[in-house]
């Protein structure tokens, strides 16, 4: 509904200019998750549209539809007046849409010029590559863009900003009319970001459109003329940046009331379950001190790359790190994940598919694997004991599966996550380190995982350290919150003291004045 209002707003704002991109009623589902639902979006020539939303709001899916990597299940996508149907990535490039990801897609051992013309390097009559012509054309494009880049420079040796410039130059040499920038600021420094903004302004002045994706509102207000907010796969609002303020956008992004989805907690922390001091690992972790009590949920937030996952991995013995002192459930430090599990600590990694699940195996296998001694009878593994143990956990955690013998790959993300929690419970772990507990999980299942985590802490005295990029999740579930920045603990809060603003400021290392100034 709000999407429709938004469409009218867009049409008025850009009057006669035919839009470069129109999306109408676009929907996309994955097993167990509706990623996008009835999304309307349009971009006029020369416009810079901000696209914002929390993690999991559907931004990445939208980008993948624009790049041709995914196809919409519903609705239509019209590029420059022409409807596209199940396009390949090459189709979308040829129609003038270029997507530039955080991690650039350049071939690092090739030069700027080679990357710009990759797959269409100019040839001589004999069919060999025409190097002088390649260089001439590259210099031509770079000069037109005002980019100070050497076409012969090897891209792997360039700064992140220079690599993004190379990608933009490559895209525009293909006559790109819409450039999608996926969270460019996540990998750019302040000076580099200013440079990027200057480029965006100059190019939008000559009719190139941009979709600028970010969850940093300050940037969106600085560079975008219009903004669209996604939440849970839907367009929930937006408008001209001159008519909106910071609070409007936060309200739209967060949407629901926190108490609707997060369970009530009894705060009854017991003895210290895990305490580490002086944890260090190169530049990733610098002198980190952390402690968690039984029955307590400790939330850790911070920007990507702040050292959150590295901290969990170091605590679990998955990566090497120095520590001044370390106590786990009254015992000494585990030196690898095997010892950690044996002593009652289990890490549930961020990327479930590549580091957590055994996808070819069934649910019972995935649950029992970290505690095989518990399904052993007379020295041999007993399938019936295993199935019974798995069934008990399936019922207790309400895992939706047809049977313990179902392949875990058939389960939705939320149920896979529950299987991993079940695995650590089967192994009798008392300290759980959960990295992004609800990544790739839909809203309904998220709520169940929150309830489960609260129940484990409150009723069973499990100590939980949770890393999350979703601030509402951190605020809704944690007893204490620790903010990390550049490998250090930047701030410590009790449950009541923090808000999204306060946490974000601590994560960015900004003071109050700075944020308000940008929002105004």
């Amino acid at each position, binding site marked *: 509904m709000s999407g429709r209002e938004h469409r009218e707003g867009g049409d008025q704002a850009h009057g006669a200019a035919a839009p470069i991109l129109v999306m109408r009623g676009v929907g996309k*589902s*994955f*097993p*167990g998750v509706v990623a996008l639902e009835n999304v309307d979006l349009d971009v006029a020539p020369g416009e810079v549209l901000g696209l914002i939303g929390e993690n999991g709001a559907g931004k990445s899916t939208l980008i993948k539809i624009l790049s041709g990597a995914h196809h919409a299940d519903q609705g239509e996508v019209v590029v420059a007046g022409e409807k596209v149907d199940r396009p390949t990535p090459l189709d979308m490039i040829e129609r003038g849409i270029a997507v530039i990801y955080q991690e650039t897609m350049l071939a690092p051992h090739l030069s700027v010029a080679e990357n710009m013309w990759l797959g269409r390097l100019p040839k001589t009559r004999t069919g060999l590559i025409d190097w002088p012509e390649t260089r001439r054309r590259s210099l031509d494009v770079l000069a037109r863009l005002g980019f100070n880049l050497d076409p012969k420079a090897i891209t792997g040796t360039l700064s992140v900003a220079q690599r993004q410039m190379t990608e933009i130059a490559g895209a525009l040499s293909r006559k790109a009319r819409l450039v999608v920038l996926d969270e460019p600021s996540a990998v750019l420094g302040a000076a580099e970001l200013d440079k990027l903004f200057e480029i965006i302004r100059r190019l939008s002045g000559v009719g190139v459109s941009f979709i600028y994706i970010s969850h940093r509102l300050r940037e969106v207000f600085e560079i975008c003329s219009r903004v669209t907010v996604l939440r849970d796969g839907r367009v929930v609002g937006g408008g001209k940046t001159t008519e909106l303020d910071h609070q409007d956008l936060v309200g739209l992004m967060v949407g629901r009331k926190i108490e609707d989805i997060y369970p009530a907690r009894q705060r009854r922390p017991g003895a210290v379950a895990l305490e580490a001091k002086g944890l260090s690992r190169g530049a990733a972790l610098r002198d980190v001190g952390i402690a968690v009590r039984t029955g307590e949920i400790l939330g850790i937030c911070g920007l990507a790359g702040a050292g959150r996952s590295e901290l969990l991995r170091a605590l*679990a013995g*998955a990566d090497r790190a120095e520590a001044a002192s370390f106590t786990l459930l009254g015992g000494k430090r585990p030196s*690898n*994940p*095997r010892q*950690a*599990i*044996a002593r009652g600590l289990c*890490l549930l*990694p961020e990327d479930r598919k*590549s*580091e*957590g*699940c*055994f*996808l*070819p*195996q*069934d649910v019972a*296998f995935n649950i*029992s*694997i*970290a505690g*095989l*001694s518990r399904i*052993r009878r007379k020295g*041999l*593994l007993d399938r019936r004991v295993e*199935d019974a143990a798995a*069934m008990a956990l*399936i019922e207790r955690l309400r895992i*939706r*599966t*047809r*049977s*313990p*013998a*179902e392949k875990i*790959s*058939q389960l939705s993300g939320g149920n896979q996550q529950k299987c991993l929690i079940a*695995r650590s419970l089967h*192994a009798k772990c008392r300290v759980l380190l959960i990295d992004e507990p609800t990544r790739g999980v839909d809203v309904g299942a998220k709520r169940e995982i929150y309830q489960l985590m609260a129940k484990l802490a409150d009723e069973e005295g499990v100590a939980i350290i949770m890393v999350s990029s979703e601030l509402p999740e951190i605020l809704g579930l944690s007893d204490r919150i620790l903010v990390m920045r550049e490998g250090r603990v930047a701030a410590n809060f009790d449950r009541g003291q923090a808000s999204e603003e306060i946490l974000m400021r601590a994560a960015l290392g900004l003071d109050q004045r700075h944020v308000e100034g940008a929002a105004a």
Partner: protein
Amino acid sequence: MIDEKLERRQLAPNLTAFGITQLRRLGAMRASGLIWVLVIMCAVAAFVSDAFLNPFNLINVLRQVALFGIVSVGMTFVILTAGIDLSIGSIVAVVAVTAAMLLDASLPIPLVIVAGLAIGSVMGAVNGAGITLGGIPPFIMTLGTMVMGRGLAMTISDGHPIHFRAVADQFAWLGQGHLLGLPVPVWVFVIVAALAAGLLRFTAFGRNIYAVGSNPEAARLAGIDVKRTIFLVYLISGFLSGLTALIFISRLTVGEPVAGTGLELEAIAITVIGGTSLFGGEGRISGTILGAAIVAVLANILNLFGVSPFTQQIVKGAIIVAAVLFEIIRRRKNSVSKHG
């Protein structure tokens, strides 16, 4: 898709043991598919050639199954961890010539057997150490030991077959003897296969093999000693290669430096035809037994028809490609149904 989800939710509360066995049976269906392939091949063979059902011929086929089957069991362990062992044939050659020399030097037979198995195991352990401690990809590591092993066998034997006439009769039982009407190697294979199947099914080590093959990083985080598991599968593969070498020289009463040439390729073919995934984590010993039987019966049929060994190679190669293609198509179908 949505209907299926709803259905699953409704089913969830009343899970039954019946449902579990049903699903496990689904997993076993591929093995039963192989049984039908084998039955049909045997039926065709019996129909077109009177010689096929001749007991002597059948026992010959069984012996063939056993000889290729033992190393294929080792290969199955290796491939389940998503590895590969190209050195099997060369380990057979090294053990064959050294054991033959030891027999010729009149060492006690039990000692020679222990020495042969130990040499095979050590060579397997070298593979395992290179892969786990050195981080060398299994293909490269075992390619290296394959080439080195063949060279070693040639060096030790000076390129000549090594005879051990003095004790040939006493040592013949292992390769040529019979027990309850079946050749001894067949019994050896039965024992090896039964132990291997039990190991995979009923021990933590077996589970760890599947876990490591499915996802090594997840296995590490789940507390599995990934390196130890990988090291041991190569050691087992080397041990079984040593065992095969002893049967070879007992049967032929000679240790040849060219023994076992191409055996690793036979073992890979048998394992893959038997349904073990080259991507790791999926496969069963029962499949490998059927794979060995299918390959042996096929070779027998082609022999009975008088097809030249050259043509046989073409057929065998085509079947390996077809088996892997079948596996890939099956995977693609699975992933389509998951996202459909």
